[in-house]
């Protein structure tokens, strides 16, 4: 038996080594880099500067805008995707004819790259065309907006495109969650004289809580990492007055265009810490729960 286990472990080894180096080794390396003065292609003498890069980062107006943008994005994108996803899943779960057809349409954006989505939405949200034309034609002129070209809107426009792309994900999660609820519970609720709203409020809703939690974690970590969509819609500059800028984009420009490696490393470590706060408790919780089952 022990011999078997050793062979089994050897099979796992190549992947463990790759992940140990490419994930954990590289993170450590990035962390170390973020504490140095390597903020140029040719630094005569590399030395540790402590938390200098982080201090400069948090004092940087652009980074402050980025953090605020991430927050605004999350506050629109996460609830938006949850509500739309739950709504769609409830509709699909009524037993309508053509469920498969509608489901295929609703989840289709999930198969597209953010860049493709970006091309479509960049033109839909073009101030002189797209949605604004449509709103005019429908007599909904008050909905017209400068979208990503208007500094007051900026990241909110990006969040709208993100909801379009990823609400299908929450819809799939909720649909799977709804299907897992035993029919008997609804029958019991009906016997007890519950109205449809009460059945939803006291049976469906509580039983979907774990699904909502999963969705919030996954959507939350996407909000922190969002990059492609911003580049594709607002461009590498992050829109007027950085109104669509996000930390991942700031990191990219700082590192690969300005060659300020240590500063870029500091941004990515901040991102990593934020993602870890969200993901580690969740991973721990879901693996624990699995063992308990």
């Amino acid at each position, binding site marked *: 038996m022990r011999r078997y286990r050793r062979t089994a472990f050897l099979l796992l080894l190549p992947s463990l080594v790759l992940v140990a180096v490419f994930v954990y080794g590289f993170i450590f390396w990035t962390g170390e880099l973020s504490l140095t003065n390597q903020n140029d292609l040719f630094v005569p003498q590399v030395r540790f500067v402590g938390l200098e890069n982080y201090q400069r980062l948090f004092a940087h107006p652009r980074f402050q805008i980025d953090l605020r943008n991430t927050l605004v994005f999350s506050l629109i994108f996460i609830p938006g995707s949850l509500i739309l996803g739950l709504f769609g899943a409830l509709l699909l779960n009524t037993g309508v004819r053509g469920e498969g057809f509608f489901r295929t349409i609703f989840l289709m954006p999930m198969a597209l790259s953010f860049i493709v989505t970006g091309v479509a939405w960049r033109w839909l949200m073009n101030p002189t065309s797209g949605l604004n034309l449509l709103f005019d034609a429908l007599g909904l002129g008050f909905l017209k907006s400068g979208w990503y070209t208007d500094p007051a809107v900026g990241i909110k426009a990006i969040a709208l495109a993100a909801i379009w792309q990823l609400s299908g994900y929450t819809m799939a999660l909720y649909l799977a969650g709804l299907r897992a609820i035993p029919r008997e519970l609804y029958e019991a609720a009906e016997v007890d004289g519950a109205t449809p709203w009460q059945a939803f409020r006291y049976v469906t809703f509580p039983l979907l809580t774990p699904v909502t939690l999963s969705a919030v974690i996954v959507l939350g970590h996407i909000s922190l990492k969002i990059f492609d969509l911003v580049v594709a819609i607002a461009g590498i500059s992050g829109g007027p007055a950085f109104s669509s800028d996000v930390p991942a984009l700031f990191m990219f420009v700082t590192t690969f265009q300005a060659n300020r490696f240590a500063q*870029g490393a500091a941004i990515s470590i901040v991102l990593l810490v934020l993602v870890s706060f969200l993901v580690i408790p969740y991973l721990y919780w*879901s693996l624990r729960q699995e063992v308990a089952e």
Partner: protein
Amino acid sequence: MRRTLLFWALVYAALLLLAVFYLIPIYVLLINALKDYREVSVEAMWRLPEHLSLASFAKAWYGDPGVGMSGLGQNFWNSVKLVVPATFFSVLLGSINGYVLAQWRFRGSETLFFLLLFGMFIPYQSVLIPLVKVLMKLGLYGTISGLVLTHVVYGIPITTLIFRNYYAQIPRELGEAAQIDGAGVLGVYRHVILPLSAPGTVVAVIWQFTQIWNDFLFGVVITNKPSVQPITVALNNLAGSYIVEWNVQMAGAILAALPTLAVYILMGRYFIRGLLAGSVKG
């Protein structure tokens, strides 16, 4: 619960409204990409084409050397050359890992699994700088092989997760029976697990295919020359260029979306399973 006609009317109305919301961007891409260039105007974005034309697609694919615009055709093939080996190797590794973690649990295997899974959620920005340095040392920076290696490595967590959850459903007694017949760890994998792997493999292949085809971040950081860039990077350059008409950009977007869209429409069920696997609990 009694359901009235009104109930169903409202359900269908809401479903149709949602369908319109999800289809609008695709509709806009399609009708404008199919327009003859004389019909293209920002004011007429919503008007259906009077004459169907594939000229925008041809221009997006072949480019226009006269104005120095390179087409997406080459980049499409770069993406193919990237996605095929990268998907193959990451799925192979995921299958082996999933097998070990599901069928041969040992002390600390749960911890290792946790450490592997975390790699799925990290912001890749936190590994990009060392990655570029190491790829440069290996002579793989700016090459498709370098991108393949990158996608294989960072694909390990999700493929391992998909296969582990899938193999966990296979009763361990099957493997134990094969062991009594003299099969070792590899023998059990080959003769018991592998023949049962098809559904899990389809899920993993579709998932990795979609993720790798759609990736932008690794592509834009690792490939600097247009001749080796995957299609997402090239499409973004095309869309950001002022010399390229916007209907050509839209045709390019459709070209870039076609492979994953085709896979999704043909095998959506498996795609959704991969989607659900990504939320960890299988």
